[in-house]
């Protein structure tokens, strides 16, 4: 009997010690602008679920059936709000389409945090409380600046910029970062012929390889290709097939997947930006917890414009294969 009493007291104490969320777990919904088959988002989801596990929250990640469909994403947000969650995390891929629904969520007392992609005007353009993600333009700018060090020191330079998703904030803004840097180089080197061109490169390794391969056939003087995603890994295969040695046409882009790491090791990709997708899932959920439980306001977190070079690959590969980077 004594034993039983002791167990009951211990159970009561442990319930009290684990805090309020044990009885009333936080309800968080994460709506994104992508389909589930995009590898990048699986790393975000892993971070999100890990954080949810730590704070004992009830969490749901909602993907789209049609990649990039803004109406579908808004509908998902509406559906999520109908059950009055504690927090809504979302990617804001359009500057106006999400304004009304986010404002309504805030008015209803729901914590709203943007992740991965933000309104181009930031906090001024949207009622979200914080943004956790990459500054796309600085990331594109930084990538171009890093790759510039590998460009020929003399003679003309021609660069191709592949816009993976024309019209989508993340892709257009990264491309803008790259071209902003190139424009500065053009202005700074009036005696040098520096040119660039943008194409709709696509969101598929095989298509990007074919399109950029065709472009390189038409403009063999091209020195470098920048992709706004990771699909330039397919271009490395084209260069290899043509017997073009690594480094002759410089390749750079965003995010780390195994095939990119392979091509970095082979020398075909010289530099890559890592935006730490795991962190983009983990930190918003933790911020919801601290806002709700401690009363701290959510803050912007720049998950990075970290540049990754071939020398870093071996250290990163293990984390990448686990979906942590």
């Amino acid at each position, binding site marked *: 009997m004594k034993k039983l009493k002791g167990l009951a007291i211990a159970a009561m104490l442990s319930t009290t010690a684990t805090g309020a969320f044990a009885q009333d777990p936080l309800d968080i919904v994460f709506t994104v602008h992508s*389909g*589930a*088959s*995009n*590898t990048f*988002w*699986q*790393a975000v*989801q*892993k971070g999100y679920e890990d954080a949810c596990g730590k704070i004992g929250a009830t969490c749901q990640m909602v993907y789209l*059936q049609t*990649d990039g469909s803004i109406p579908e994403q808004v509908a998902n947000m509406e559906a999520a709000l109908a059950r009055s969650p504690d927090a809504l995390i979302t990617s804001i891929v359009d500057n106006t389409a999400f304004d009304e629904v986010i404002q309504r969520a805030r008015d209803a007392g729901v914590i709203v945090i943007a992740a991965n992609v933000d309104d181009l005007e930031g906090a001024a353009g949207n009622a979200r409380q914080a943004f956790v993600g990459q500054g796309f333009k600085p990331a594109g700018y930084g990538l171009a600046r890093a790759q510039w060090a590998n460009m020929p020191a003399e003679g003309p330079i021609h660069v191709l910029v592949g816009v993976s998703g*024309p019209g989508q904030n993340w892709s257009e803004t990264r491309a803008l970062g790259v071209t902003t840097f190139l424009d500065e180089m053009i202005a700074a080197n009036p005696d040098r012929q520096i040119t660039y*061109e943008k*194409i*709709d490169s696509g*969101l*598929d*390794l*095989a*298509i990007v*390889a*074919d*399109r950029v*391969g*065709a*472009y*390189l*056939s*038409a403009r063999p003087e091209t020195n470098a290709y920048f992709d706004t995603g990771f699909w330039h*890994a*397919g271009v490395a*295969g*084209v260069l290899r*097939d*043509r*017997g073009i040695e690594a480094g002759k046409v410089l390749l750079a882009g965003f995010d780390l*997947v*195994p*095939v990119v790491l*392979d091509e970095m090791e082979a020398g075909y990709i010289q530099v890559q930006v890592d935006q730490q997708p795991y962190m983009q899932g983990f930190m918003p959920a933790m911020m919801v917890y601290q806002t709700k439980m401690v009363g701290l306001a959510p803050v912007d977190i720049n998950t990075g414009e970290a540049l990754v070079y071939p020398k870093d690959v071996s250290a990163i590969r293990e984390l990448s*294969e*686990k*979906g942590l980077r």
Partner: protein
Amino acid sequence: MRRLFKLSLQKPELASALLLLLLVIVFQVRSDNVFLSTNNIRGILGILPETALVAVGVTLLMICGEFDLSVGSVFALMPMTMAVLVVGGWPFWLAVLAGLGLCALIGFLNGWITIRFDIPSFITTLGMLFMARSLTVVISGGFPPRIKPGEVPSWLFVGFVDEGGLVRASVLWFAGIAILISLLLSRTNFGNWVRATGGFPPAASAMGIATGKVKIACFMICSVLAGFAGMIQSLRLNSFLPSIGEGMELQAVASAVIGGTSLFGGVGSVLGGVIGATLIRVIDNGMVLSQIDANWFKFAIGALTIFAVVGNAWLRRKGRAMKVETDK
């Protein structure tokens, strides 16, 4: 001679073949002769067998009077299944067989559900499109498995077969399979059953053709070809991503229609499907080469689809209206 001309005009793939020829000439001129250069042909021959194999399967199924919208998802599911099994320690060939077996099962389910419950294949395969894509993500855990170069005999499917590094083994696989399916359609009873089933099912049934079984067989062939094509692409790029093949279903249907396959079944040819797939690749590639604003890609493919179908119908009408002397 006139009779031959009349027969040619009535060929369903004629309009698209003429258009293909015209576009090749236009792009060759506009690109300062780069279009037919070795490097560019190598690029086209890399991706074409993959998209054309899917188009061949869809064409066969459309001739049989059905659609398959799940081919893009099956295109991703097969290589992902294979890669996950190989990474899990399965022998390569067993993993390939398991992947193809899964494709055949999906094809069977597509056909069986369509026939058993008498619902449009458009709906059945639309459902399968989502299910197969979801399975692809689930079995990989969302993260692409990594097969190191040289770990599997990729050369057998995608290695270059000539010294100049122009033609890959995938071209030979594609050519062999396309010829086989073409012969199946034109030289065997099965081919006659397919056309009869697609052309006028009640008459085919009345003739004793097991139309349900014929359709299920076509669904299975279509799925297996899509999966095989996906495996070739993944081996070529040495990357097993769950997102490959998205949107491929509509491109495959467009290839078949551009090549003269009737949306109502019974009419079409494997050659037409191949020409349709080639046309789409040529336009995509040629527009980049010609440095035309790439935002016009989809417009061009849409316009081409309409043009080819209208052209085919017009040529067929002309052919039918043409009078020739009959043998006495």
